[in-house]
């Protein structure tokens, strides 16, 4: 049995795909975060960071996703932000 199992490695089923998609959908549903609110958060982040450095606003990506909690096995929602920096100039100018 094991021999055959190794010979034909089992592909993960679509059930786990469904579960992962569902988790992500529910995180967004439960966060009750409308696209407008996400846009507002994004603009505020741009305003704050722009005080210190030049960032690529077009490439900025923020979304609500999930991560493994450090204290338990539960997944917890996480605000993910990818903010490409164009230039650190402003910081140097300040100091």
């Amino acid at each position, binding site marked *: 049995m094991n021999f055959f199992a190794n010979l034909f490695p089992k592909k993960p089923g*679509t059930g786990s795909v469904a579960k992962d998609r*569902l988790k992500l959908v529910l995180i967004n549903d439960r966060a009750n975060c409308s696209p407008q609110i996400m846009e507002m958060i994004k603009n505020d982040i741009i305003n704050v960071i722009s005080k210190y450095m030049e960032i690529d606003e077009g490439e900025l990506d923020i979304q609500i996703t999930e991560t493994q909690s450090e204290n338990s096995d539960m997944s917890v929602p996480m605000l993910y932000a990818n903010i490409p920096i164009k230039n650190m100039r402003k910081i140097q100018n300040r100091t």
Partner: protein
Amino acid sequence: MSEVFVITSGKGGVGKTTTSANIGTGLAIAGYKTVMVDADIGLRNLDVVMGLENRIVYHLIDVIDGNCRLKQALVKDKRYSNLFLLPAAQTKDKNAVNPEQMQKLCLSLREEFDYVLIDCPAGIEQGFKNAIAGADKAIVVTTPEVSAVRDADRIIGLLEAAEIRNPMLILNRIRPDMVKKGNMMSLEDVTEILSIDILGAVPDDESIVIAANTGEPCVADQNSRAGQAFRDITRRMLGEAVPLADLTDDRGLMNKLKKIFRLGGA
């Protein structure tokens, strides 16, 4: 000590009406005086699932509008003398009732019955608000699909907001063969995601279709696997600790052989 349960799901077509019919019949068989209320005004179905469509004279809206007394509108089941149906109106719409009127109706039903089961319409609008208005407890029905579980999650949130605490889950239409192959979410997957107590799991079974064809709920069919699941659910509702059955289909030839070898060897 009567209890009012609402059977709800958010998404349509997951088996609310079938569940209501089977639990209602199950409780009646167990000896409790039970009434099933079809709250799906305008799209009534519980009557045909129960095979009682030819006996309807008055309906829920008639009772609320005072066109008849409550007892006149209750349709007595033809098989079980302690089972009744309060049918929905087919020609009215959901706005013909409001939550206060439903609360009043549930109060009068409580006086007559041990169990009141309300079959909720799909959706989260007026019909849903009416159906949950008079309920103390909720049963959420879903299937192992992303869309159905998502809607169930939303419904659980709305029930909590309406202060109906600790709803219980029925996972319907499980295909154990597909779960085994990893191509369907399992009961554990769904309960983990919804973090809610499980009342039962019902396998996808031909007997459900056959039962709906004839208008005789499969809970009374001793050979039906779905019927067995509903019998277990009924016993759990009555407070018995019935373990969740292993839904794996063991009737196939290969499985029978495996069983024999397992018994003989190891």
